[in-house]
């Protein structure tokens, strides 16, 4: 293995193969972003506020283009609130006006009250541009891995250790 370091082209090719795996994954993600016009076309449900429709750990596929009709009441949307990093998945329950300036109000199916509490200070409705996308498909439970990893950081260490071990063992 180490002796292959003598040939710079071989090393460059091996590095390139590794780099291309990473960059291809990234560009596929970006391609999906461009296609759906959403900065984050796949999200994981983090709370139970949309039960029984979505549970924690469900993977949601988003679509952010209004090709045939605009975002309407009844659609489940993912939106960002200014000053908060975590996107929220809730249903549109009221809509005033039309077009890009329409005022939208959202509410979690499982919540008692609408989302005015969750919005930024002084904000009592959403605009179309706050929305990251409408949910068009979902995969149950698949996203639970990312929840586990972010809530129990030691799992990351364990996973890295296992991956490292596999790499070491496969070299032999």
């Amino acid at each position, binding site marked *: 293995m180490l002796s292959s370091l003598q040939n710079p082209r071989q090393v460059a090719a091996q590095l390139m193969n590794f780099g*291309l795996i990473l960059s291809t994954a990234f560009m596929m993600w970006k391609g999906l972003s461009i296609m759906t016009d959403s900065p984050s076309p796949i999200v994981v449900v983090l709370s139970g506020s949309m039960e029984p429709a979505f549970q924690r750990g469900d993977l949601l596929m988003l679509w952010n283009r209004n090709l045939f009709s605009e975002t309407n009441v009844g659609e489940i949307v993912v939106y960002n609130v200014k000053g908060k990093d975590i996107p929220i998945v809730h249903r549109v329950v009221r809509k005033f006006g039309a077009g890009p300036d329409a005022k939208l109000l959202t509410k979690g199916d499982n919540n008692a009250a609408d989302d005015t509490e969750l919005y930024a200070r002084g904000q009592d409705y959403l605009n179309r541009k706050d929305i990251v996308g409408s949910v068009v498909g979902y995969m149950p439970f698949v996203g639970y891995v990312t929840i586990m990893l972010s809530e129990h950081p030691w799992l990351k260490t364990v996973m890295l250790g296992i991956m490292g071990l596999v790499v070491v063992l496969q070299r032999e």
Partner: protein
Amino acid sequence: MASSQDKITVYNLADLKNTSDDAIPNYLNSLGFTQSHRLTDVRLALGYTAFALAAACFAWDYKFGFDSTKHLTAAAVALYTLLNGLLTLWVCYVERGTVYVGTAPSAAGGETVRISTATKKNVPTYHVTVEVTGKGGKEVVETVKVSRSFTEWFDGAGRFVAAPFQAMLAGSVGVIGRADPKRAAKAREEADGPAAYTPEMLNVLAQANVSVVGSAAEEATGSEAAEAKKAGKRRKA
């Protein structure tokens, strides 16, 4: 680049092929061939350009956000797909498993050889295709195809034995033979040799308590090595 001291696992076909592939440039360059790296360089250029593009895309996305760089990102995705497609085409249709391109020294004729190798899954046979292009000319003068078992140049422990491997190349490709007449002559000798074991001879050998294992080529180098070892021991004693 496994040198002959490195041992490989003889059951690992990738190891067998890679070690043999690495031995080809070693051998031919030592004969004075001038290696051309054009194929590899084009592949590396395509790959690294694509990677740089993805890295740049990551950088501007991280810095300026998605919405303000949307069109740039779309262009980058299209260009990346194109570059990656080109890279795939290059590897599949232009390189076609080429491991060596080089020009022979003018004393040996100055032709250009292009060697590609392949193995089939789970079959320990080395398929070598050598395309010889005439001096200056573009058209392929001759194409030599050789398929040999890896056992001819790997011993049981997985050590690469250079002599029979080099004889295989020198014996089957004219240009290489002219550049290395010694190995070519040996290869010719061995080509006449394998039929040499008649039943009577085998009997004699069996009585003499000599084991006959493997092909003639292996036997030839094996005995050489054994002699060398014995000689060494004697000297030490």
